């Protein structure tokens, strides 16, 4: 396993990050701006700053083909940044929400995006040609609390959402005129807008932090605040699910998860490191950390001189400096995203966290 590539961008929390399709540009949400970093040699250098929000930016996503960037913020707005020769041009999206926007993701076909919000709804936004404007339709029922994350099914119609009312739900976001009629899936056959295709809760019902569809779209995983990951295998339209498997961990809760393959999930969160889960319909288990233990050049490997040791004891009352965590990230990991895929396996993924680090991991 190759050692992770670590980039310490700044000393601020990173709410979310997104790479462009060619993997040379990364958009990072920092406070109320979005910073674009370009790859120069082995490092990432600040290229551009997108200013347009006036409160904390909560989420950012780059569409891989069109290069458009969508951002959302606690100022209740979402902006679509169109690339042009003179820089990025922002367009305001009519979200019609009265609370903070919390999470945004482009659909795989890039004609729509979904914005989760604290207003107990998800705004599905699409472009209206005749008005030259991004408009939204609301997914409202039966959401009872803030949406923490959304994830798209590969068919760009089904949308999974995790909420602080402890439910992970699967909705249809079918927009007439924008979407072609989707093929029937295990989640449902007829899918008018706001059809609830599934509603899942785990035993102890913690907040749902993250949701994700498997690469085929035939399974759903969600991570909740009770340190668990739950995997749902649907049983077909209008049927109870074939299997709902919950893995409770001895660890702190996971903030973000992704499927690296149909039989592998990677999750990371408050433990500041990423963990691998392996399994299938028969059962899932924790397969260990992705962190290579005992990396050289960190912590204990450093030789201390006697003078230094006594100085430390004098100044701080202890001989060892133990302010460094043994993990690569020095604080909670908030987002992990696929970076490189080969076939249907994710071979590399990226993580960002509260410590301002961007790390590229090999799975």
């Amino acid at each position, binding site marked *: 396993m190759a050692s992770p590539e670590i980039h310490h961008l700044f000393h601020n929390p990173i709410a979310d990050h997104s790479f462009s399709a060619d993997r040379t540009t990364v958009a990072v949400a920092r406070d109320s701006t979005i910073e674009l970093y370009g790859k120069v040699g082995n490092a990432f250098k600040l290229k551009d700053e997108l200013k347009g929000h006036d409160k904390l930016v909560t989420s950012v996503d780059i569409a891989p083909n069109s290069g458009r960037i969508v951002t959302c913020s606690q100022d209740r707005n979402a902006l679509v940044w169109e690339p042009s020769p003179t820089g990025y041009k922002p367009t305001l999206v009519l979200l019609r929400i009265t609370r903070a926007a919390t999470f945004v993701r482009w659909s795989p076909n890039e004609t729509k995006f979904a914005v989760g919000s604290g207003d*107990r709804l998800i705004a599905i936004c699409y472009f209206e040609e005749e008005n030259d404007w991004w408009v939204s339709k609301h997914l409202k029922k039966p959401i*009872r*609390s803030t949406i923490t994350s959304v994830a798209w099914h590969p068919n760009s119609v089904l949308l999974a959402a995790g909420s602080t*009312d*402890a*439910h992970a739900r699967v909705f249809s976001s079918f927009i007439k005129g924008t979407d072609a009629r989707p093929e029937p899936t295990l989640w449902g056959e007829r899918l008018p807008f706001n059809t609830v295709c599934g509603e899942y*809760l785990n*035993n*102890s*019902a*913690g*907040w749902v932090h993250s949701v994700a569809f498997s690469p085929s779209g035939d399974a759903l995983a969600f991570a*909740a*605040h*009770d*340190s*668990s990951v739950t995997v749902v295998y649907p049983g077909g339209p209008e049927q109870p699910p074939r299997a709902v498997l919950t893995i*409770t*961990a*001895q*660890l*702190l*809760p996971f903030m973000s998860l992704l499927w690296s393959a149909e039989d592998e999930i990677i999750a990371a969160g408050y433990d500041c490191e990423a963990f691998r889960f392996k399994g299938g319909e028969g059962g899932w288990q924790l397969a260990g950390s992705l962190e290579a233990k005992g990396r050289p050049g960190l912590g204990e490997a450093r030789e201390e001189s006697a003078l230094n040791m006594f100085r430390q004891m004098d100044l701080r009352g202890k001989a060892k400096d133990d302010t460094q965590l043994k993990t690569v990230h020095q604080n909670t990991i908030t987002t992990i995203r696929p970076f490189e895929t080969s076939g249907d396996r994710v071979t590399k993924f990226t993580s960002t966290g509260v410590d301002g680090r961007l790390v590229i991991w090999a799975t």
Partner: protein
Amino acid sequence: MSIIPQHTAASLSDAWRTINIDALEEDSPLNFDTSTLRPPQSEISEADVRGLAGQVRQLLRGGDTEGALRGCLEFPVYNGTDAAKDAHLQTITEVLHSIKASEMTPLLQTIYASAGGSELLDVLMKYIYKGMGAAAPPARPGGSSAGVTPQPTGFSQIGAGRPGAGNENVGAAMSVLLSWHEKVVDVAGLGCIGRVMADWRRV
């Protein structure tokens, strides 16, 4: 008329900050019974709890401590009267007290390794916290710490009356619970504490 807004006494004071805007909104969570979001729990009566306590005591007398602990952890009282809940807490405390310190860790490990063991230890953790809360002596009404609402955290030694004979008993019970707490965290990890706090099923 001036375009400068007129400041009145009402707009200058910050009383408007305390208006609960959630109460005014129709579909706010305040006006919604959140318990309907979750599957209902079956109610357990006090008689059931007493019956279970009898069986558990029998197992304890027979020396089957694992069976006794399992027996009471498999039937947590999530939905029941306060009397039933307290009776079950008492049964569990009794079992915890009767297990020797050297047996704790191996016992917890076998329970954790078995199917559904993680859930059982979560239940145990809930009762440990409940026990800590219950074991704290009730604060004197109108006590010395004015302005601070005394919380039964289990650690409130201040404002809990004179240190006396009563406190010693409580201290002993607390030390048993604390050592159990330590052992459970060793086996089930910090995730266990997180689950107890996140869980809506209260014991």
